[in-house]
């Protein structure tokens, strides 16, 4: 193991109960900068719960989540502002155009003024092949295009930790390839990714944990 990575994101014997059912118990994981963690498991095995817990939305019933050594529960804001969370829902307003949606979130997240952000928005849209329809209202977009727009948010504002819940859902092959490239680039710049997936996500040398049936293997 390399020097104890101070920038790592770790979870120790996490237990998650939803209502009264225990979704998973004493689960450990740790992700260091430049590493990806793939979460597998059958439907309902708690993949989404784990990601929402990692994001700090859902407090673990037992166990601790630490980022760079300190508890995220102590200072959730600090954790929130340094992660991207991509859930099943894309958080897009149908009435806004593609560019307006991206710009809204970019300005809210980075707090930067309009001018500097224009270039990053354009680059993000271009990277995901949405430049052509930048001015189209979002409710005209297909599910795949909406998913790409949600992914564009990851590029528009640089944040070290990506939490992706089935990011490839409704993406076509080209889209999935782009996603894998984006993840690899993010990892190469020292970013961290935790992704819940079904099927394959061709990210080289990444850790995997499986929820549900058999005990997690790291």
């Amino acid at each position, binding site marked *: 193991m390399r020097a104890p990575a101070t920038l790592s994101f770790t979870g120790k014997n996490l237990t998650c109960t*939803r*209502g*009264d*059912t225990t979704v998973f118990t004493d689960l450990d994981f740790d992700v260091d900068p430049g590493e990806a963690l793939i979460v597998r498991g059958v439907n309902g095995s708690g993949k989404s719960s784990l990601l929402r817990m990692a994001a700090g939305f859902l407090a673990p019933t037992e166990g601790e989540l630490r980022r760079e050594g300190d508890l995220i*529960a102590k200072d959730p804001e600090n954790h929130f502002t340094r992660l991207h969370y991509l859930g099943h829902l894309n958080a897009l307003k149908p009435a806004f155009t593609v560019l307006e949606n991206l710009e809204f979130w970019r300005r809210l997240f980075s707090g930067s003024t309009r001018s500097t952000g224009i270039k990053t928005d354009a680059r993000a849209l271009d990277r995901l092949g949405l430049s052509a329809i930048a001015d189209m209202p979002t409710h005209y977009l297909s599910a795949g295009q909406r998913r790409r727009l949600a992914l564009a948010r990851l590029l528009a504002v640089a944040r070290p930790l990506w939490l992706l819940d089935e990011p490839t859902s409704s993406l076509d092959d080209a889209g999935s390839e782009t996603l894998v490239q984006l993840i690899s680039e993010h990892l190469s710049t020292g970013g961290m990714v935790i992704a819940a997936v079904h099927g394959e996500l061709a990210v080289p040398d990444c850790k995997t944990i499986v929820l549900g049936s058999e005990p997690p293997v790291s």
Partner: protein
Amino acid sequence: MVNWHRLANPKLFLTWSRRVLPWAAVITALLLAVGLYLSLFVAPPDYQQGDTVRIMFVHVPSAWMALFTYTVMAGASAAGLIWKSPLSHLTAKAAAPIGASFTLLALATGALWGQPMWGTWWVWDARLTSVLILFFLYLGYMAIWQAIDDYTRAAKSAAILALVGFVNVPIIKFSVDWWNTLHQPASVLRLDGPSIHPTLLTPLFVMIAAFTGYFIVLLLIRLEREILARQAQTLRRAQARG
């Protein structure tokens, strides 16, 4: 964060409450008997209101219990949110229907008391109106428990509502009192009379004590039922998956 409250508390509570319940029931019964005897037989009729003043011996305790129960609910909700103990949320949930019943009793007895005096069943008196609004706060609290399926979310939402309601009770009381004095010159026959005659005080306090005892007995019963219902639900879920 330390939540040792959570684990030990319910079982500890159940053993404790089963021991306390019979005693509380006996004391309450005694208080009720004494109170009824005093209010019906011993207390003299009021020189102005005659015997209708006896209704005060059930009206005032009911209204007082309605407010007391809401305070208990707010306190339990605050404790539930701060120390994250489900027992507190269950206490508030168990208390709500009791409080709502007391508000209804207060309104009904108030109408029965007001009728001979003002010839109408409902009087927009400041206290009666405040109790009516308190009844709506109770309905809102109970409705939110029903509306949300997930237990933890329902408990916390209800707790927030109880606290928001609690902050508003004095504001509502103040504004209704002010509104009442504006529209109705202070009527001589205020519900509790110009000043309560000393001989009426003792029965009143005994009745209030009896009502409080009744509240505690009922709360313990309802709380135990809530705890057992939760445990049954967990067992059912476990078996469904087991």
